[in-house]
Each structure stands twice: as structure tokens, then as C-alpha cells.
């Protein structure tokens, strides 16, 4: 898309765009999570251990922030992902669609230390998107006639029952992308995309950690997955482990 602009035009405008408040780069995860306080609600991108904000999770562990409500599709495994926060008992409540593969989670839930709100995966995704899009509520057929429907408005459309579901409300969202620039534009790789773009839209303050921070103008505007307007802080993460939960090989 840079081809749309002549080099002259580009050089004329690039100078002033590179500095000031439009530059959202922060130093590291520790700086990025400034303002996250005990008791807050956080959205965290990722599906299983794929596309999770590894650096920020570690920073939250290090900072010892506690009583967190975490909205995330999964809760990590015992010793990685959100499991690290669970180990330190920093999570008060978990809002997720699937929480298997985690013995410490199970223990805390059964003992009543951890509050758990299970939400159908599609509803979880849509509630994030709705939050980002200023849609306070919508109707979905998922969960009608089940425990999930308890206390929710039921409404029929074309003779089919639907539940009213509300947009989430989260002061902070933390996402992980493949590439990003100083304006906050993000590109994801493979299925590490998952909930990340939705949560990026939904956070009042969205923190993005990226594998590679590129120069503004390097990302093709046509292939940006998350426009920078949805991101308030960005940094290039380090030491990504990208652990694989089920390493399944074809013989």
C-alpha cells in the first residue's frame, strides 16, 4: 500500500507521525502492565498455550498483582500460561470456556478458592467482539436449555429460542501478536490469532506484546489484522517459549 504514496509525500509526512502520543512503544512487559491493580478484570488472548502473552503473564507474576478476574478461553497448564498466576493464587475468578489440563486449577476450584464462570466458546468470542464494537448485548442460541441459560433472558426469533448475552467490560486486555508497529498495528500468525484480535478491541487499555516490532509503514495496510486504534501499549517481547500442549506427529 505504500506504493499509493509517492516517496516525496511519504517523506513529508512520515517525520511527524513517528513521534508523540501516536508512538505507543513501551520498554518491556513490566512497563506495559503499569496501572493493573489488585482486583481488576483482565482479558488475555490465546487458545490453550497458543498465542498467549507470555511476557506479560510473567510480569504479572513478578508484580504479585492479586485477586484478578481473568477472561481467557483457557487457564493454561500447571506450569505455564495462566497456570503460573494460579500457582501464586493471584486469580480470584476465571471466565473461560475450557479449563481442563490443569490440576492446580481443579484443586482451587473444588476447594472454593477459585471462582469459575464457564461460558460457551462462541459466546465468549462474541462478548469480546461486542465489547469492542459498542454493542451492549446480543442474542445467541448457544446454551439455551442448559445451566448457562440460568437467569438469562430467553427470546424467540423465527421460532427458535435464544439467550441475551452481554458485552464484557475489561479495563485491560493483553494480547500477543507476531508483528506490530509503533502505532499499535498488529499481524498474527496461524492459529495464534484466535481471541487476540477480539480482546484487543475490547480492552479499555490494550497491551500488545509482539515477536517483532517493525518500522511504521512496513506492514501492508491491507493485511493488518488489528488496526492500531485498538492498541494503547506495545513492546517487543523476549524469550518466547511457545510451548506445545499436544505435540502430535504424523508417521
Amino acid at each position: 500500500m505504500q506504493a499509493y504514496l509517492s516517496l516525496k509525500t511519504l517523506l513529508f509526512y512520515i517525520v511527524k507521525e513517528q513521534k508523540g502520543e501516536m508512538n505507543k512503544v513501551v520498554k518491556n512487559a513490566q512497563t506495559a502492565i503499569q496501572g493493573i491493580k489488585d482486583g481488576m478484570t483482565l482479558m488475555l488472548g490465546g487458545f490453550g498455550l497458543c498465542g498467549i502473552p507470555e511476557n506479560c503473564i510473567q510480569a504479572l507474576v513478578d508484580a504479585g498483582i492479586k485477586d484478578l478476574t481473568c477472561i481467557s478461553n483457557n487457564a493454561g497448564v500447571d506450569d505455564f500460561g495462566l497456570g503460573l498466576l494460579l500457582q501464586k493464587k493471584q486469580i480470584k475468578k476465571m471466565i473461560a470456556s475450557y479449563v481442563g489440563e490443569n490440576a492446580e486449577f481443579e484443586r482451587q476450584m473444588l476447594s472454593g478458592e477459585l471462582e469459575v464462570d464457564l461460558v460457551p466458546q462462541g459466546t465468549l468470542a462474541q462478548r469480546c467482539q461486542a465489547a469492542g464494537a459498542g454493542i451492549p448485548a446480543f442474542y445467541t442460541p448457544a446454551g439455551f436449555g442448559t445451566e448457562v441459560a440460568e437467569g438469562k433472558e430467553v427470546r424467540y426469533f423465527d421460532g427458535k429460542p435464544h439467550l441475551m448475552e452481554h458485552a464484557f467490560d475489561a479495563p485491560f486486555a493483553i494480547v500477543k501478536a507476531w508483528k506490530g508497529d509503533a502505532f499499535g498495528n498488529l499481524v498474527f500468525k496461524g492459529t495464534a490469532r484466535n481471541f487476540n484480535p477480539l480482546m484487543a478491541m475490547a480492552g479499555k487499555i490494550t497491551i500488545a506484546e509482539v515477536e517483532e516490532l517493525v518500522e511504521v509503514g512496513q506492514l501492508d495496510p491491507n493485511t493488518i489484522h488489528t488496526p492500531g486504534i485498538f492498541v494503547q501499549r506495545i513492546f517487543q517481547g523476549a524469550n518466547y517459549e511457545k510451548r506445545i500442549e499436544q505435540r502430535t506427529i504424523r508417521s
Partner: protein
Amino acid sequence: MLDKHGIARRIAQELQDGWYVNLGIGIPTLIANYIPEGISVEFQSENGILGMGPFPTEAEVDADLINAGKQTITAMPGASIFDSATSFAMIRGKHIQLTVLGAMEVADNGDIANWKIPGKMVKGMGGAMDLVASADNIIVAMMHTNKRGKSKLLRNCTLPLTGVKCVKKIVTNLAVLDVTDQGFKLLERAPGVSVEDIENATEGRLIIDGDIPEMNI
């Protein structure tokens, strides 16, 4: 009597050319190995990929490319990647022609329970509630009875429901059945299984209409 692979092979016969298919964890995953000749289908995984390919070779493994069971996968030519909202738009918007999933219990009105056993660990429903509430064509792949020999095809589900009146067809180790307004309608027997075997293993209302053929598998 069929084993898990037999169940998968029988369900694979239901596939039609050009269908988009979502396969659940467990037996359903095996179906991908038995696609009939001359049939092209695309597999969707609800974590955000359409055109899922076989498991990778050691060299192809990519931590950023997994399926909803968190297994490493490959992408076929023509695959596409998308976010979770778009993925469930495909599911909720009825763009998927077939959903196959496992179950702990199915009632003879099509109710399904597959996500929670009270008093035991609850792992969560994942995408199952969205899938069963939205799909027009749902096949349940499961054993006819549980480990204690109790029927999983019931008059009413005893476990917390995943969805109501949604299952259309069931393929078990013993039989193929349709879910109708009058209950389970027996369509086919597994090799070596008698109608009586199936009657004994089915707690819900069972409709046996005329001769029941053995599966052609």
C-alpha cells in the same frame, strides 16, 4: 460390533462432496482418516482454521498451528485462518454442513449431555454448546453404553445438558440411529450385532420398523 475406528469409518460414509465439517475431540477426529474416494471436504477447527490438514511431520511442527484439541496440525492448500469470532460466525451462521461430536448421554428427543459430571471435575463446554445449538446436521459418535454397561441412549438425560433437541443421528459401536419425534429410529446394525442386543443396550424409546440391515462397512 465396531471399534472406535469402525464408528469413524461408518460416519465418514455420511460425508458429501464439498461439505465443511467440524469434528470434535476423540472418535470424531478419526473420521478424517476415512474420507471416501472422490469426496472433497474441508475440516474446520473452531480455534480458527478452515482447511485443516493431517498432523505434521517432525519438520513441519509449528507451535502457532494447532487444532481445537491443542494438537499440532498442518494447513491444506486453500486453507484460511481467522479469529474466534469469525470461527463461531461460521458455526452459528450455519455455514458448516456437518458437526460430529462425542457425548456422555443422548436422550430420545435429541437432547445431549457431554460437558459436565456434577461432583467431578468440570472441564468446561468449550465450543460444544455453540456447535449443538447452531448446527442443522449433528451426528453423535459414541459407545452405545458406558464403562459400567449402562445405556447412553436414554429417555431423558441425567447429566447437565449441552443442548436441547439437537442431535439428528447417532453412530455407536452397535448401531446407526436417527432421532425422530417418536424416539430413536434404528437404521442399521453393526456387523454381528442383533436387534435384541441393541434393544438391551438402549434405555430410550427405540423404533424398530421392518428388517434392520447390517451396516455396509
